[in-house]
């Protein structure tokens, strides 16, 4: 089998895109997600009040009261503003953790898959040890070592995700090693680094990006979960998990606080899952939906 030409790969992506556009749920999810992302990114330019301004006279205001569309929290801070600002942190955690995981996993997977031998043995045993922990527990263990906080949580989630990516990349690389174009490149004496960068990486990166897209929602949820436990974002940061945790203390008096914060996390994750589902169907047309 020869390496697929750039033209064939392009037309494959066009087909995937066409198929994806036909999936109405995925399209609606995509636009909803874009709107949410844009609102969060443009938060400083939307003319919203400062998310940390305390106004104790309006604490626990209900939705629509005193000009607070989604109410106010326990310090009288406008909840809609905090939700929009909170999206910046929650979504950043998800994307940053996935990108870091992907980069480390890619590097380790390429090394183990290409070099094999003692590299493979050492790195994969390390990966096995990491996989001996349930995902969130591994992230919690790392936070236990580094200390609670937003930066440490992002690092912890990223490291906890490394085994997943390393195994996928290693599997893909092992599958490629017997292909003719790799054998040919090795036979003409191409240096290993060039083979990895020019021949293996382009064939591994596309499925990895799809896997990473599917993983972002999960990482956002995990990041919010860490903040919910008090291990991630710290007060007075506006972060969805932390807002949910604070809101849960006022479940009787102001249930809307928990409702809106949880809804924000769920909607983003749901949208990403619908897009992921559509993408998976589009990439593998033989597989029936589900």
């Amino acid at each position: 089998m020869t390496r697929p030409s750039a033209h064939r790969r392009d037309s494959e992506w066009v087909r995937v895109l066409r198929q994806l556009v036909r999936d109405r749920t995925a399209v609606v999810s995509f636009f909803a997600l874009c709107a949410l992302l844009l609102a969060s990114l443009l938060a400083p330019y939307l003319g919203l009040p400062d998310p940390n301004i305390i106004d104790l006279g309006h604490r626990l205001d209900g939705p629509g009261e005193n000009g607070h569309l989604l109410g106010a929290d326990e310090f009288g801070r406008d909840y809609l503003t905090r939700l929009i600002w909170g999206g910046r942190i929650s979504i950043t955690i998800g994307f940053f953790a996935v990108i870091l995981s992907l980069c480390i996993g890619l590097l380790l997977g390429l090394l183990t898959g290409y070099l094999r031998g003692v590299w493979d043995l050492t790195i994969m045993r390390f990966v096995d040890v990491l996989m001996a922990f349930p995902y969130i527990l591994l992230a919690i263990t790392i936070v236990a070592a580094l200390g609670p906080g937003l930066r440490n949580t992002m690092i912890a989630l990223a490291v906890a995700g490394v085994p997943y990516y390393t195994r996928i990349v290693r599997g893909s690389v092992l599958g490629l090693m017997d292909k003719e174009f790799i054998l040919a490149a090795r036979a003409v004496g191409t240096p290993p680094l060039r083979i990895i960068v020019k021949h293996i990486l382009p064939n591994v990166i596309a499925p990895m990006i799809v896997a990473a897209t599917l993983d972002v929602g999960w990482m956002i949820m995990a990041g919010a979960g860490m903040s919910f436990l008090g291990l991630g974002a710290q007060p007075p940061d506006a972060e969805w998990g932390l807002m949910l945790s604070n809101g849960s203390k006022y479940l009787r008096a102001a249930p809307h606080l928990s409702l809106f914060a949880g809804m924000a996390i769920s909607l983003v994750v749901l949208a990403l899952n619908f897009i992921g589902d559509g993408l998976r169907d589009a990439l593998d047309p033989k597989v029936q939906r589900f």
Partner: protein
Amino acid sequence: MTGYLVRRILWLLPVLVGVTFLVFLTMHLAPGDPVKIMLGPRATEETLNRVRTELGLDRPMPVQYVSWISRVLAGDWGRSIQLRRRVLPLVSSRFASTALLGFSALFLASLGGIGAGIAAAFKRHTAWDRMFTFLAIVGFSIPVFWFGLILQFIFGVRLGWLPTSGMIASIGGGGAWDMVYHLILPVAALAAEPMALIARMTRSSMLEVIQEDYIRTARSKGLTEKVVLLKHALRNAFVPILTVIGMQLGFVFAGSVFVEAIFSWPGVGNLIVNGILARDFPIVQGSILLIASSYVLINLLVDVSYAYVTPQLRYD
């Protein structure tokens, strides 16, 4: 089978050593002096030195690890700085509560998930099926910590039907029924996500199997759709379903950390989080070590049982 078992156990040993090393490292990776972090700024130099010697922190790291692991194997897991109690009995009793919560949730998720998956396969390509598909995606997109709060709000706060926290009632509680009563909400919260995944796998696995020739044969014999699905299809679709149930073990262990926090369930997850916030390293190390090693051993049991029912797995 014996060869497979020996291979799996031999593979397990270095993993367990790695797990213990990683848990041991948690205290040493922390920036700053762990003893100062644990005891706070008001601790005297004498106390700091005493705890340092007690924990063996004044010796080289490899020596510390060997000494720590020897003590762990001998059953001495240290003392909690905050709670001033021995770690092993405390963590073990809490672990029993977590295991009760986790396995009950896994049982409910398997029962509900397989049932819903079969129903969806039975009603495939109908409005019911589409609704099921949608609900399943919603099921694993809702964070366990939000779903738990919703259940707590509706059934505990608003309707007042079920208790919102604890394992037994503080006044006049303690019987088995009281515990079951307290278990309902946490178990339902923890079971939602695995149930959605198990249902999804059951449906797709059933749909794959019903395309096989032997199903066509069963139908051509005039058997009812119910008999075909339950007797012929389900049995053959069961291995992937079992695999996904096994994979949910990690989720219920990890998810219990959130559920325990919401429902004040006295489990090991609560212990870990409070331990981290209070920088109580012996408690954190003991709890993580117990969960991770149990998880490894339970996974071994799951793998061995797969190998038992699926002989070709033994040669992988």
